[in-house]
């Protein structure tokens, strides 16, 4: 048996209640590894072009990787994938915490949900015993409340992944939340879960994960862990969390402020992790096997929100609920983050949808009577809370906002379209001001999985990929960096480890040594990148099948406008964007004019069966 895998997975038909236990296809696992990779292959094989994202024929896949649940650093990770209701394309999101590790210890590497339950249900997987149970009593509860109820019932060692009201109401950017705030955020996977009438998945177990070569595995893990701890990112996360990047990002013009209308945010130091860690009570909330220990449960100890407890927000949450909506009070940002998590809403899409409405309201493009009588002004946190509830319940104006930033812009009218912040077919990017972060911009603009596909090498090198210098604003450099880092990232996303633990200087080499000694395989770095490239191309073919065109590899007009102030004043990617795109297509072995993989590229990757989707 392969090390790292339990060896079997579940297929759960929610319509007829049939639960099948299938043996893993080991040949397929060697080609796609697990996590995002294996999910991409299953979705490609089974979700044909006429399957709508919220129809019962869409699949919802929870997939661990071979490293999930082991002692490899950051190995609480798992992926969730489906056809996205937000983009119409493939989406894979990831989360950390303990759910993924516990799913595997409960006895299964993956769960594939099919069809739709007639009544609300949740799935319980306890030491290989699988039951579909009535969820009526927990419907309407937030994700945090759902977790509390189910852990009270099944014990604190049970782990819960659930949707909130947003998922139940199929908000197009509804999220799945586990472990008190670890969020599978992108692409509306919570809506797909809600469309299946599936409220939660509860896992519990203590099955051992086999290891092929224990001594070498532990040695590789030791080196990998040391590398991760000693990296600058590791030190930052341990000391200050991702919020420890806030002040730096503001200094370089990367923090989004008021829908990208300005870069000025004088209160930035208050939002930095240095301030949070000094000012508030922090309690450890470590993910499975994480040596960085960056996740914390925080308590606000004075003022209006004295006693308020929540997961310490990540940098993006703080940016989303602070400067991007014109809010300069960090405690309000903490409260809004917790609210979004509990409602089960992706902060990325919701902040850029709300900030669009704020700018439109300011400019008079939308009026109070169109917004249920609300004056949606910059920084009005109470109004934002109301809007989040309205979005989650699709109430009033929430019915419009629940479809995301581009659809909201179209509803407002043509005055709003130039203001909207989105990529590809209209979903919001990660919460950065992308206008001077071209690497991050591009890796999202061409992404095939509704999030960031590669690694931003604007400011750093990646010696393991042969990229010796930061690519900065270079049209050839950015294209080359994406073509090399995309496969690396997709391979990592298939392993079952946290993104932050993959950023050390050893790069892929130590991860592959760990993987090989765990599984008994014998991959090289080149073979790993080949697998990552295969995964990207398969996602691409899936998306082409579902209507992707070259125009979809784009960003909105607002992102192409240069900043009017701040470090990036006057800078825009607009003049060279199409050149970067063409260079990238060339690097990938895709047709330069259409972005479609060439048949010979697919053949080389063992994807000849996908060529028919290109016709």
């Amino acid at each position, binding site marked *: 048996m392969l090390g790292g895998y339990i060896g079997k997975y579940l297929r759960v038909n929610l319509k007829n209640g049939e639960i099948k236990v299938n043996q893993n296809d080991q040949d397929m696992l060697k080609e796609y590894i697990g996590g995002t990779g294996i999910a991409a292959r299953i979705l490609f094989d089974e979700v044909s072009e006429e399957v709508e994202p919220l129809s019962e024929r869409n699949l919802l896949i929870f997939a661990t990787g071979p490293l999930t649940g082991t002692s490899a650093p950051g190995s609480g990770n798992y992926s969730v994938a489906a056809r996205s209701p937000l983009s119409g394309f493939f989406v894979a999101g990831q989360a950390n915490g303990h759910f993924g590790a516990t799913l595997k210890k409960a006895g299964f590497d993956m769960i594939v949900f099919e069809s739709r339950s007639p009544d609300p249900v949740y799935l319980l997987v306890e030491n290989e015993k699988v039951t579909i149970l009535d969820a009526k009593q927990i419907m309407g509860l937030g994700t945090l409340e759902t977790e509390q109820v189910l852990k009270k019932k099944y014990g604190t060692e049970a782990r819960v992944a659930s949707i909130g009201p947003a998922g139940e109401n199929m908000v197009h950017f509804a999220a799945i939340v586990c472990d008190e705030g670890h969020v599978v955020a992108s692409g509306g996977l919570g809506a797909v879960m809600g469309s299946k009438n599936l409220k939660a998945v509860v896992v519990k177990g203590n099955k051992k994960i086999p290891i092929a070569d224990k001594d070498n595995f532990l040695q590789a893990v030791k080196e990998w862990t040391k590398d991760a701890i*000693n*990296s*600058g*990112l590791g*030190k*930052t996360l341990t*000391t*200050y969390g991702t919020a*420890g*990047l806030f*002040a*730096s*990002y503001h*200094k*370089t*013009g*990367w923090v989004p402020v008021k829908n990208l209308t300005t870069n000025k945010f004088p209160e930035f130091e208050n939002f930095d992790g*240095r301030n949070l860690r000094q000012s508030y009570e922090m309690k450890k909330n470590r993910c499975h096997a994480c040596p960085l220990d960056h996740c914390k449960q925080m308590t606000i100890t004075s003022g209006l929100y004295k006693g308020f407890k929540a997961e310490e927000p990540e940098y*993006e949450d703080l940016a989303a609920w602070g400067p991007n909506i014109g809010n300069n009070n960090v405690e309000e940002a903490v409260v809004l983050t917790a609210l979004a998590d509990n409602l089960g809403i992706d902060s990325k899409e919701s902040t850029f949808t709300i900030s669009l409405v704020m700018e439109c309201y300011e400019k008079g493009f939308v009026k109070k009577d169109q917004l249920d009588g609300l004056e949606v002004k910059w920084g009005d946190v109470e109004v934002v809370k109301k809007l989040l509830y309205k979005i989650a319940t699709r109430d009033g104006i929430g019915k419009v906002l629940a479809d995301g930033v581009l659809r909201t812009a179209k509803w407002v009218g043509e005055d709003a379209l130039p203001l909207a912040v989105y990529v590809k077919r209209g979903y919001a*990017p*990660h*919460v*950065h001001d992308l206008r*001077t*972060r071209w*690497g*991050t911009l591009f*890796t999202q603009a061409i992404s095939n999985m509704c999030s*960031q596909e*590669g*690694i*931003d090498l*604007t*400011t*750093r*090198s*990646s*010696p393991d990929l042969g990229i*010796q*210098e*930061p690519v*900065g*604003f270079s049209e050839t450099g950015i294209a080359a960096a994406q073509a090399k880092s995309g496969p690396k990232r997709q391979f990592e996303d298939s392993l079952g480890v946290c993104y932050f633990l993959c*950023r050390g*200087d050893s790069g892929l080499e130590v991860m592959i040594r760990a993987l090989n000694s765990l599984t008994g395989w014998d991959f090289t770095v080149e073979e790993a990148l080949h697998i990552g490239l295969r995964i990207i191309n398969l996602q691409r073919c899936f998306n082409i099948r579902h209507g992707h065109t070259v125009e979809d590899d784009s960003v909105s007009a607002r992102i192409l406008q240069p900043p009017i102030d*701040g*470090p*990036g*004043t006057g*800078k825009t990617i607009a003049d060279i964007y199409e050149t970067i795109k063409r260079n990238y297509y060339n690097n990938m072995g895709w047709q330069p004019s259409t972005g479609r993989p060439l048949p010979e590229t697919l053949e080389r990757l063992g994807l000849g069966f996908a060529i028919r989707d290109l016709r």
Partner: protein
Amino acid sequence: MVTVEFMGIFRDMTGTGEIQLDVSGIINVLDLVEELGKRFPLIHQYLKTFWCDTYKVSLYSSIAIVKDGQICKISDPVEDNDRIIIILPCTGG
């Protein structure tokens, strides 16, 4: 003189948010980084973790030097009145 601002963990390593530095003897960014390593042992120790025969290559994965909103390379010149920010290299969201 140049102004060097330290962000994040570099502020911890130097104990300060900002210093003024005489540019005599500093021609380019690599000279600046080496000077900072001499003045601040914790910076030297941090960079030394990545120090090897190809340390110049690894440097870019451990430190980013920003001037006028641009990421600098080690060969980029350092001039009088420059304002330079030392940050951790970002990798994305």
